[in-house]
């Protein structure tokens, strides 16, 4: 078993799946000799060659649209969008084509493909290298949306995504690429898409989160423990389809729910989770459902102090968790 960071886990999983299945190939901007701007495909070009590790022209709609065509023909493209902020030129291909192909053809045509994109802020990326874009996709049936928070989860979920029969958006938080390490088994394993994970069990409050804020909430939960409160931290891992069973069970267990994400609050994933808890667990609740999210501004500013102000942190999470515990 090796200790890997998240970007290593992504790369080793791509290598594993490309060795396992000749039809799996990666395509995107600078994924070839350079190995991707974050190194997610480093070394794959040398092992698999330019046909299977393909540098694309600077055209996001084409990266996805060509991927769709290749998937229709029976190959398994893993498309890399260099930054999630640049996915918007490909929205039409994702929403109008990939998401609807199976439905509109009554099951005759399908698009098994993965669209990977680094997202999230706190890396001095300014407006256009920091966004959380998951909420633009989570209302689109036909897509699956996955966000791993650990290297171990990244490997199991990416393996599942590559083998999935439907289009999967796989968002990797840039702030986790090298910040978290965990033991990752060398052998293949699959973490099913659609299954949340209790990252820490607890009895006083439930925190439902995903991505980088999982780690903020775990750090805060450790501190809160010292103050005498026990927090359950549920990592959603998949945002579409949501693991309703796990959300409801986690909410019922403590009766106090805080939802945390870096993306803006309004119409964010937290709104859907809160609505689900309201529908299913109202009489189990001991406090109003709370949301702690990024501010509702267009995107993250560049200057250090403003960026820091925008980002959540373990201490901000701790404050919200403590307040809920004391309610």
């Amino acid at each position, binding site marked *: 078993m090796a200790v890997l960071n998240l970007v290593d886990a992504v790369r080793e999983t791509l290598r594993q799946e490309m060795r396992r299945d000749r039809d799996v190939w990666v395509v995107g901007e600078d994924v070839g000799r350079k190995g991707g701007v974050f190194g997610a495909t480093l070394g794959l070009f040398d092992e698999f060659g330019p046909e299977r590790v393909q540098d694309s022209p600077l055209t996001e709609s*084409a990266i996805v649209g060509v991927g769709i*065509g*290749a998937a229709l*023909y029976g*190959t398994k493209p893993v498309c890399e969008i260099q930054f999630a902020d640049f996915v918007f030129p490909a929205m039409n291909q994702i929403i*109008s084509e990939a998401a609807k192909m199976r439905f*509109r053809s009554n099951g005759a*045509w399908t698009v098994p493909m993965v669209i990977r994109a680094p997202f999230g802020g706190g890396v001095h990326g300014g407006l256009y290298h920091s966004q959380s874009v998951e909420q633009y996709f989570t209302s689109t049936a036909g897509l699956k949306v996955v966000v791993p928070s650990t290297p171990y989860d990244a490997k199991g979920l990416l393996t599942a995504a590559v083998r999935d029969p*439907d289009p999967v958006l796989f968002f990797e938080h840039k702030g986790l690429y090298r910040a978290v390490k965990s033991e990752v088994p060398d052998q293949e394993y699959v973490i099913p898409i659609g299954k949340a994970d209790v990252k820490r069990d607890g009895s006083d409050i439930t925190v439902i989160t995903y991505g980088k804020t999982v780690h903020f909430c775990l750090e805060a939960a450790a501190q809160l423990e010292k103050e005498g409160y026990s927090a359950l931290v549920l990592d959603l891992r998949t945002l579409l389809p949501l693991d309703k069973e796990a959300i409801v069970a986690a909410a019922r267990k403590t009766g106090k729910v805080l939802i945390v994400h870096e993306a803006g609050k309004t119409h964010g994933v937290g709104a859907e989770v809160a609505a689900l808890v309201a529908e299913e667990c109202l009489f189990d609740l001991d406090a109003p459902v709370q949301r702690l999210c990024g501010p509702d501004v267009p995107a993250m500013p560049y200057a250090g102090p403003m960026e820091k102000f925008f980002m959540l942190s373990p201490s901000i999470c701790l404050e919200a968790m403590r307040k809920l515990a004391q309610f």
Partner: protein
Amino acid sequence: MTAETQAPHAALGLSREQCQEMYYYMLLTRRIDERLWLLQRGGKIPFVISPQGAEAAQVGAAYAFRRKHDWFTPYYRDLGVNLVAGVTPREIMLGAFARGIDPASGGKQMPSHWGNRPLNVVSGSSPVTTQLLHAVGIAQAARRKGDDVVVYTCCGEGSSNQGDFHEALNWAGVHRLPVIFMVQNNEYAISVPLEKQVAGGSVAARGLGYGMPGIEVDGQDLFAVYAAFRDAHDRARRGDGPSLIEALCVRITSHSSDDDQRRYRSSEELEALKQKDPLVRIRAYLRENGLMDEATEKTIEARISAEVDDATEWAEGQPYAEPAAALRHVYADPPGEEG
């Protein structure tokens, strides 16, 4: 007789039977479309979008491809391409009536949103030009698998302004992929004429910028179109890459059954269209060259009439899908629960 003095069809090596077959498909395209208009005006189907004026371009183009072998990502007017690819009049009518066993979409999509898996006709959508990128991806995947496949894709001249048009041509040009991009230039994007759509006036000229031949062809000339596509198909199979072919067509009908072109085209212009009907032209050609006598023409007309009647009556008699079929095929069924 030398090639210079031969009639165009003979120079292309097309037999009398092949010429009659091409005429059959052109006329079948026209007669199905005319029936769809009658059904729409009679309140039996909600919508028609028409290929009238492009029959020679569509049949000439599709005739260069190999049925059940090559792949197609057509555009919504491509009724003639679908028929040559092997889609039957009954299947077309199932789509028009939105019946449950419609092979394109099971009644989920509007008519003319083609799709036929056994014939390699890929499902299409309403946002224009997205299918050009799919064609490029299909060609790339086919080549990687070592398959000798050429891909047909098509859009209108208005759609040649979409970003996906340029991204697709560029990608295919960079990788020398076996794709033939057809643009059926019928001079109007709904109501907006060519000069307000295409700077430079030529879609074909755009091919040069993407490293491929850009060929302009008279879309009313069946054999000229076929020749251009046969050459492009040969180039693609030789590994010489993609081609862009702009067929100059006319649009005889309004954009769709929801449009009335009299609001933006003069009566003189509309009257002049009758002189540009590709069916009139091919009939004259076949007669002059002794390829179709009056009796044969009547036989073909009668055969098509019977086929269109049969397809209409049969398809109308098929049931709709169950209403709750609206919930099916969002994702793959879990293993063990397929069907």
